[in-house]
Each structure stands twice: as structure tokens, then as C-alpha cells.
């Protein structure tokens, strides 16, 4: 068996895992979710979800990658051949996410450039939709679902995003991914800390922090708040779409899996908290300047980053351009480190299954994803992006997480062997709580979340989009990832490919 690539250092692996987990969602999703779900009181369900689902799931995925030393499909196949399709399903989900995630980074890159002259002007919403994205329904009067033509302002930075991402991936694990994260993560942190410190010194920052942290204890009793907390932890940690399994497959034999999971999870939450403080301090400033209640300016996602933040930057008392570059630059760094990890999942999977070199795998996998991403760089791309993003997260990532945890714990009954493996390599040992969290609590919460989302989406169309559009851009994409999973899992492996690596057998727990 050919030696698998390895991380150069433990810190390199942790930085890469943190770089993957810390993405756009930390900056634009967490602050609003916390504010909407009880403010300071949200910490209770959030921390509970972190300890009962986030960290246990991270440990499970780290252990699978380390024990079976393969990409997600190979690791699942070595666990049990019948489970291989779950690995391919997760890889297919990662592929879909990479196609639109790259486009959002391209927007952030373009906005970093626009910041130099505050090109968005005073009507930031109009600038985004009409001038930058040239939205097909506004500019051409076309219906949702039509692509329109390619938008050069999006495609040019998109090409740059792919050149950087694939360039890093060509270099491999140690010289590419590890080295890039050693630059990206500290740079991102420094940029973000500067923004947070400046935001905290603005007039109205205290109002923003009051809005974010004031606890509304009455909300704690609502199941919706707990689901939101589990959802935030689940979507934020890059779990259930093959990344952490792939990354941990490059760990050396002696690795403290459990402690690594704690560091990665707490580092991710630390950045989320920092982002919450920065974002709400800035929103408090904006509300004070515009003399409106903060509830009117508080938002999340694309609206927060590309409409509200340009407005905030416009009203900054000084160095507006610099803070624009810092904010959008930090989005670029956060996004790139995550995109690299997402693309690595299918590059590693192609390498493992089809026995091709890393270079060929990057060209095939990365090239195909880059090609598909052009769809989102069209005038109608925003609608496709919105629908695909919502459906692949709600019914792809969440469902694959549910299926994987049920398969491993209930059907294959492999939680104990995995736990033994992790405990034998780790200083910090997990006990019965780990198996209860993964065997009972996590499936129950993910199952409840899934049923709730399914009912809501069957009752009402997401964002009121036409049913025909949602069938192919939403439900169809989710179904396609499952079908791709089964098709690729039906292809045969080489004679010795599914043998469990020697070092895992040394640990003597594979039944």
C-alpha cells in the first residue's frame, strides 16, 4: 500500500481543521442566529450542542479518518463496504457546495477591490443587485430560473479564486494545504481583531452588544431555539460532508484525536464569538447613525455582508477604504481556507478510488467544479445559489449527518470500536457520554430537525420560488447527490484497497 501523505506538524492539522470550520457562516450566520434565539441566553443551548453533538461528531469523524486512513468513501468502505455510498454522498455534497461557495468568495474578492474607492456608493442594495450581479429579473425582466448571460465582474474574480485554490491543492497536503492555512488563519485573525477593536470604539457599539448579549430566558423553553443551536454547531463545524474524515486521514499514527477535536471545536466557536462582537458593535453604530432601532438593520448572510456592511463602511468616521478592505479581505481568507478543504474531499476520493495522481485528480475534480461554478456567475446565478445552498445544507448535509450517525451507531454498532481507537491514541479519553451523545441525542435532534424542515418545505416553497425551479435547483440537486453516491459506490475497489491499515489493527479493536 502506498504511503499516504501526512501533515508536517500537529499545529498544521489543527490550523487546517480550524480553517475549514471557520468560514463565511461564522461571520455572517452565528451573530444573527444568536440574536434571534435569546441573545445571551442562546449560550446555554449553544454550549450544550457543542458538547453533546459538535465535539462528539468531530471525534467520530477524526477517528474514522485516522483509523481507516482514507478519503470519506474509502474510510466508509473500510468500515463496511455497504456504507461506502455514504462517503460518496458526502463527497458529492462537498462538490455541490464547492461550486457555489467559490462564487461567494469571488464576490468578496470583487468587493475587496471595490472598497478601495467605495465603489458601491450610497445605494448598496441597488449596487449589488443591478450593477454588480446584473440580476436577470431586474436587468432583463426575465423569470427566476433563467440564467441570462455570464457576468464578467463575477467571472474574473472567480477565475482567480480557482487559480489560488487549485494551485494550493496541486502542492499537496503539507506543502499546499498546511502552508496556506499557516498564512491564511493568522492573517484572518489579525484582520478580524483590528475590525473588532475598531467596531468596539464606535459610537453605538454598546447598543449592539446589548442587543446581542441581553438574555431572553423565556426563549430557552422553545424547541426552535435548541434546534437553531444544534443547527449552528452542525453547519459551522464542517461535519458530515467528508472534510474532517479526509483531513484526519493525513494524521500520523500517534495523534491525540480527542484533544484535537476539542481544540478545533473551541477555536471555531471562539472565532464565531469574536465575529458576533464585531458584527453587532458595527450594527449598533449603524443604528445609532441612522437613528433607527437596531432590529431594522440586524440581518444575516449575503444581505449583511454585501448590503449592510458597505453601508456601515460608508459611515465610518475615518479610514473607510481600509476597513472595507479588511472586512472583505477577511471574508476572502475565511472562504478560501474552507473552499480548499471542501475541494480536497473529492480530490482525495478520486485519488483513492481511481488510482490517479494528485495532479490529475485536481485537474479532473477541481476543473469540473470550476466549470459548474460558472452557472452561479450568470445573471440568474443568485437564485440558483440561494436555492442550492438552502437545500444542500438543509436536506443534504443534515440528512447525511443523520444517516451516517445512525448507520455507525445503530446498524453497524461501531461506536465502541471507534471510541477504543480514539482513546488509545488520545491523552483525553471519552466515556459513556460520547456513545450516548452519538447513539441517542444526536440522531434524535438531527431527526427532529429533518422532519421539521421537511414539513415546512412541503407546506411552503422556500422563499416563494416557483415549484418547477425548486424541483431542479433544490430537491433535484439533493436527490442527485444520493444517486451519485450509489453509482460511485457500485464501482469496484482494487484487491487490497479495503484492507484496514496496519497501524489501526495494531490498536487491536477492529472486530
Amino acid at each position: 500500500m502506498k504511503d499516504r501523505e501526512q501533515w508536517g506538524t500537529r499545529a498544521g492539522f489543527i490550523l487546517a481543521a480550524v480553517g475549514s470550520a471557520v468560514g463565511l457562516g461564522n461571520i455572517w450566520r452565528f451573530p444573527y442566529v444568536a440574536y434571534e434565539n435569546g441573545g445571551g441566553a442562546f449560550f446555554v443551548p449553544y454550549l450544550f450542542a457543542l458538547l453533546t453533538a459538535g465535539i462528539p461528531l468531530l471525534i467520530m469523524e477524526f477517528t474514522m479518518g485516522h483509523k481507516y486512513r482514507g478519503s470519506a468513501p474509502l474510510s466508509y468502505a473500510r468500515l463496511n463496504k455497504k456504507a461506502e455510498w455514504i462517503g460518496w454522498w458526502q463527497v458529492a455534497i462537498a462538490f455541490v457546495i464547492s461550486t457555489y461557495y467559490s462564487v461567494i468568495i469571488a464576490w468578496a474578492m470583487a468587493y475587496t477591490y471595490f472598497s478601495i474607492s467605495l465603489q458601491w456608493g450610497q445605494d448598496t442594495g441597488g449596487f449589488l443587485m443591478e450593477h454588480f450581479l446584473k440580476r436577470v429579473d431586474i436587468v432583463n425582466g426575465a423569470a427566476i430560473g433563467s440564467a441570462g448571460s455570464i457576468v464578467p465582474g463575477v467571472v474574473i474574480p472567480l477565475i482567480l479564486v480557482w487559480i489560488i485554490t487549485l494551485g494550493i491543492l496541486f502542492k499537496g497536503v503539507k506543502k499546499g494545504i498546511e502552508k496556506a492555512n499557516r498564512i491564511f488563519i493568522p492573517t484572518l485573525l489579525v484582520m478580524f481583531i483590528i475590525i473588532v477593536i475598531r467596531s468596539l470604539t464606535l459610537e453605538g457599539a454598546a447598543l449592539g452588544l446589548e442587543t446581542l448579549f441581553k438574555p431572553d430566558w423565556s426563549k430557552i423553553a422553545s424547541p426552535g431555539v435548541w434546534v437553531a443551536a444544534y443547527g449552528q454547531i452542525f453547519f459551522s463545524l464542517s461535519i458530515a460532508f467528508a472534510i474532517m474524515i479526509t483531513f484526519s486521514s493525513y494524521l500520523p499514527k500517534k495523534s491525540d484525536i480527542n484533544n484535537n477535536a476539542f481544540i478545533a471545536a473551541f477555536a471555531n466557536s471562539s472565532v464565531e464569538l469574536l465575529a458576533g462582537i464585531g458584527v453587532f458593535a458595527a450594527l449598533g453604530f449603524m443604528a445609532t447613525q441612522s437613528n433607527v432601532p437596531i432590529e431594522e438593520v440586524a440581518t444575516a448572510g449575503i444581505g449583511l455582508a454585501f448590503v449592510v456592511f458597505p453601508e456601515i463602511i460608508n459611515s465610518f468616521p475615518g479610514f473607510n477604504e481600509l476597513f472595507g478592505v479588511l472586512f472583505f479581505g477577511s471574508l476572502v481568507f475565511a472562504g478560501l481556507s474552507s473552499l480548499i478543504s471542501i475541494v480536497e474531499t473529492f480530490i482525495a476520493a478520486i485519488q483513492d478510488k481511481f488510482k490517479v495522481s494528485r495532479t490529475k485528480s485536481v485537474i479532473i475534480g477541481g476543473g469540473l467544479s470550476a466549470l459548474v461554478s460558472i452557472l452561479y456567475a450568470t445573471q440568474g446565478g443568485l437564485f440558483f445559489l440561494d436555492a442550492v445552498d438552502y437545500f444542500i445544507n438543509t436536506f443534504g448535509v443534515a440528512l447525511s449527518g443523520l444517516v451516517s450517525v445512525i448507520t455507525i451507531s445503530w446498524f453497524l454498532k461501531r461506536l465502541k470500536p471507534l471510541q477504543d481507537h480514539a482513546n488509545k491514541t488520545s491523552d483525553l479519553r471519552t466515556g459513556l457520554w460520547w456513545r450516548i451523545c452519538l447513539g441517542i441525542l444526536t440522531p434524535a435532534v438531527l431527526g427532529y430537525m429533518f422532519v421539521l424542515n421537511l414539513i415546512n418545505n412541503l407546506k411552503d416553497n422556500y422563499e416563494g420560488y416557483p415549484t418547477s425551479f425548486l424541483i431542479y435547483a433544490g430537491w433535484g440537486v439533493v436527490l442527485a447527490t444520493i444517486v451519485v453516491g450509489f453509482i460511485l459506490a457500485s464501482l469496484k475497489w482494487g484487491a487490497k484497497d479495503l484492507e484496514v491499515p496496519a497501524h489501526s489493527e495494531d490498536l487491536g479493536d477492529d472486530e
Partner: protein
Amino acid sequence: MSSSAIVMMFVGIIVIWGGLAASIWNAVKVSKQK
């Protein structure tokens, strides 16, 4: 800022950033022992 908001902000900071510091400290401690 109200006192309840200040308390919750510090609780969040201490638990989350403290959790990170503790897990890094544990990793350093273990690696030094080996």
C-alpha cells in the same frame, strides 16, 4: 449595557475562549511530558 448583558458576554468569553485555552494548554502539557 445592562448588567445581565455584560454578565452573559463575559460568561460566553470565559467558557468559549477559556475552553480553547484549556484544550491548547492540555495539548502542550501532554507533549512536554512525552
